[in-house]
């Protein structure tokens, strides 16, 4: 083990991202007497690799190593597939799909996020949903949206190249990008452009000519009866050149050319870095290089990069703490899991819309901007109202009972004890003494006479609850 490490005592303030040594950053974190494996680190791991820690998760984490915790969060991928959960989820999906309402798919997915034994798979499914953004408002077919979501889940941590090939023939994606009919006389450039700009390479790594040529490669790719179909009569069989490669015949071969582009692994790894580590600043190429190397060596397996990030010195030194803003989905699911609560998931799915992240309804093909874009005066009030509504919903229960009963079971009997519990469990960044005092004043001046609830509601207005 390298003796060099990020000094986590001062990590949060003393290190700029540009100053961190890439070799140290991505080496596996090891506990030491000065930097023990503790609740704070475990909670960070669950926040970034999942949707927050339930009391049960935390209990498990403290008895096991970070690597074992990641194994647990991967669930399916280490052979611990929970058949019972999958059967249950499949029955819920069948019921929702029978109704044909894409909005209700959000409730089904929230159920998975809350209860899946492999939260990291769900987290990465959410990542790909934002990356290959497709909106049910345009696709309008819940079956296709469900199929796409399952596709993301299947490939969530697998070979990125296989995922790109699969999504390129996904009916929902092609409909969303107006590519359900692509004729050789009028090649549709939408999917070709987004494949390079948004999905694989990023701006500046292709030319307009490449877009036109790639669009020619995709001619004959159609959606008929909700399924991908290749129509050879509409395919432009002339020779095409793309990104410097000549004599490309098929769409599949063209996708391979895009995937072989040197910029592809940097593009994907940087997006994963921003999703798991911090919203800003932008990481340097030198910082990403070890991850890119790992990505290529693993055969473009997403799991290898994700695992390296989560178990790294950079992550578990606590440097990323408070450097991401919780998305609405993360906030909602974190809160419910953290409080060991259950609630009306249909209502929860609808409540995410005004907060800016309705599942299955991304704003456009670029997906959600994330970061600071999550927060504005309207969504901040919305986040607070969301907590009020959650607590006011008659279906919200805490470990199957009322909040008061649950607090008793947790042996929380004073307001100070409750505030301490909330700080430890829900906040990524602890409150300063003056912030604590202000919070207590807000509770006592709250119109809500139930101070347990008042504490939670006033906390929801605190900027620090928005940080991950």
């Amino acid at each position, binding site marked *: 083990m390298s003796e060099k490490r990020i000094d986590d005592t001062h990590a949060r303030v003393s290190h700029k991202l540009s100053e961190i040594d890439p070799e140290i950053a991505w080496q596996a974190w090891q506990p030491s007497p000065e930097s023990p494996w503790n609740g704070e680190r475990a909670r960070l791991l669950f926040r970034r690799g999942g949707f927050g820690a339930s009391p049960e998760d935390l209990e498990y984490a403290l008895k096991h190593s970070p690597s074992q915790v990641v194994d647990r969060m991967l669930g399916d991928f280490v052979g611990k597939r929970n058949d019972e959960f999958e059967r*249950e989820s*499949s*029955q*819920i999906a*069948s*019921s*929702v*799909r*029978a109704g*044909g309402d894409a909005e*209700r798919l959000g*409730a*089904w997915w929230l*159920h998975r996020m809350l209860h899946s034994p492999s939260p990291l798979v769900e987290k990465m499914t959410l990542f790909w949903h934002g990356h290959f953004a497709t909106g049910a408002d345009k696709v309008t*077919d819940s079956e296709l949206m469900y199929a796409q979501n399952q596709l993301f889940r299947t490939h969530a941590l697998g070979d990125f190249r296989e995922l790109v090939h699969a999504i390129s023939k996904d009916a929902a994606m092609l409909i969303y990008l107006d590519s359900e009919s692509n004729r050789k006389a009028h090649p549709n450039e939408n999917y070709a452009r987004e494949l390079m700009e948004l999905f694989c390479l990023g701006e500046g790594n292709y030319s307009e000519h490449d877009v036109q040529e790639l669009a020619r490669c995709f001619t004959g790719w159609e959606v*008929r*009866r*909700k399924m991908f179909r290749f129509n050879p009569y509409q395919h432009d069989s002339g020779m095409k050149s793309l990104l410097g490669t000549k004599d490309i015949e098929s769409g599949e071969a063209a996708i391979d050319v895009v995937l072989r582009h040197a910029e592809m692994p940097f593009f994907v790894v940087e997006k994963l870095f921003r999703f798991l580590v911090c919203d800003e600043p932008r990481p340097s190429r030198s910082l990403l290089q070890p991850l890119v190397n790992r990505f290529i060596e693993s055969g473009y397996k997403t799991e290898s990069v994700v695992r390296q990030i989560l178990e790294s010195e950079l992550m578990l030194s606590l440097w990323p703490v408070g450097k991401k803003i919780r998305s609405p989905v993360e906030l909602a699911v974190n809160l419910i899991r953290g409080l060991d*609560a*259950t*609630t*009306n*998931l*249909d209502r929860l799915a609808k409540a995410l819309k005004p907060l800016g992240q309705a599942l299955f309804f991304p704003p456009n093909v670029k997906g959600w901007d994330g970061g600071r874009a999550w927060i504005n005066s309207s969504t901040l009030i919305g986040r607070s109202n969301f907590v009020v509504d959650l607590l006011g919903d008659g*279906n*919200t*229960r805490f470990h*199957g009972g009322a909040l008061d009963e649950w607090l008793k079971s947790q042996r929380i009997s004073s307001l100070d004890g409750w505030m301490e519990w909330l700080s430890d469990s829900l906040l990524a960044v602890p409150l300063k003494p003056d912030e604590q005092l202000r919070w207590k004043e807000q509770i006592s001046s709250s119109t809500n006479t139930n101070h347990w609830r008042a504490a939670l509601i006033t906390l929801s207005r605190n900027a620090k609850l928005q940080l991950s």
Partner: protein
Amino acid sequence: MVLYQRGLVFFCRVLSLGVSCLLPTTRAWPQETPSPSVEVANHVESENPRDWLPNSTVLYAQIAPVSEWMEHPLREWLVETEAFKKIWRSPEVMKVRGGITVAEFAIGYKLDRLLKDLTEGGVYVAIDRETKGLVVLTKTKGEEWLSKYLEKALDYVRKDAKSKNQPEPIESAQYRGIEGYKLQNGIFAAIGPWLMFTNQGELAKAVIDRTVDPGLPTLRQARWTAITDTTWVRGASGTNQDRGTATASRLVNFEVDLATVRSVIGQNDLFSEQAKDFGAELILGGVLSVLRNAPVVAGSLDMDASGISIEVNAPSEEPWFAESREYYVGPSVSGRAPAAPKIVDSIATLGTYRNLSEMWLRAGDLFNQNVNDQLAQADNTLTTLFSGKDFGTDILGAIEPELQLIAKQQSFPEGGLHPTVQLPAFAFVAKLKKPEVMRRELKRIFQSFVGFLNITGAQEAQPQLELSMDRVGDNPVYFAEYVRDADRPYENGLPIQFNFSPTLAFLGDQVILASSVTLARELLDESLSPSQAKGSPPDVHTLLRLDATALRAVLESNENAMIAQNMLEKGHSRAEAKREIETLLGILSLFRSGTVEMSFQNKASLSLRVDAMIESK
């Protein structure tokens, strides 16, 4: 300790619960105490609460003593049912039972015995307009008994509060020689052998005043109660003759001053002449006409060993139905339901009178502007869909107003593929005015309709319908069935469309429109059978029969979907959701059948009756 406290609260408040729940605003017992008078000795001279309640009473109900409920044969049956046993053993009920046991021990009286003695002479409930109060009067076992146990209960509450260092929980004051007590939201007092609970001090005063001073205006003298003493009410207040069993008993009687209720509520949607909801008007239009005009409504609840019957009656006069609602009641209120066909295992059969064409064409009088705009839009679409025929005049106008609706569970082959969500089949049966013309017209429209569904379905990649024709006897049956994709595995079951095989069939001058060809064939078979009932039941305007067993079978076949729905809506675990659905099915299993009957008896009253027949052991 928690159980003990729960028991106390339950025990001491068991009777005041209704008061505090229904009318949360509570005023304290009046502070001004009139000087004691000699009137005290004359309390309870009359034995009828009608003589004690103010004439501003708007609702009055008589409820049978608890002993009659508890000793009823139905109770014995109920406690033996599996569903009841399950609920009785549920954690929630066990918690309450524990609390009751502790309280029974503390008071020294079993709850069921206490309730019997407390209500030995009956229970009377009233709502007063002036004080906005609710009062419950129970005639107890006797003055001495009441005095003893009231003191015991009060003492108990005081001790309990003291043990918790809480302030004195009971306020007391005297009014005309009667001691009144206020505990949280309830006020109560003993008047001779009577116990009175109310949520308004002024109402308590009004009642006591009348027990002392017979000269004050009382409920008995209220104008509206005189109306209830008429033939139609007396008919309603007799025993349940239809059931004809010796054990039938009247458990509840109630009367409502509808005119006052209307004046208090004002012009809300219920009493508005123009409906804003098409469905509500279609189902309840005529009933609402009665409610908008009738001065009173009265009802009763009867129970015998075979079931429960609820009957509500209101006077009805022909002029109350504006011309626009003739579609609902027929000319001179003569509309009657046709006899419903007898279909084995049907979930529901409905026979009713509605002149749909008249309703459609009178929409401008019946509905507000918003509904009319929507209907105008629908009229255009439907006219197009029905091959250019005017929907209101040519299509709806082609059928007589005696209508039948039938719902039945569908059976799907064992082990074969079936729809993920299994829906019941529905059929609509009506008589054609000009069968020789309309049979051809409707056949052609049906063919166009199937073609239309196929075109729109193809655009959405939905399954396609295949049109066929068959005969039952000499009667033609035109139907269309969805065709499965040969290359599709249907791993999650068939899509919801496979519940349907749209069917059009004719039987003489009757037309059958069904969602399933199987149901249409069955209706034709039954109609051809000599055992089929003919003719309309006298006076019945609407008759709905429900079969709880068949309904339960439909729900059971969709149990997984219901569990999934429950998990999403309530956030329950699968086990919790399953338990809740099983409880629902268990409750449903208590019932065998139900009937809702609406009639215009002698054109003078509207009667709505609901019968729930209990599943035998």
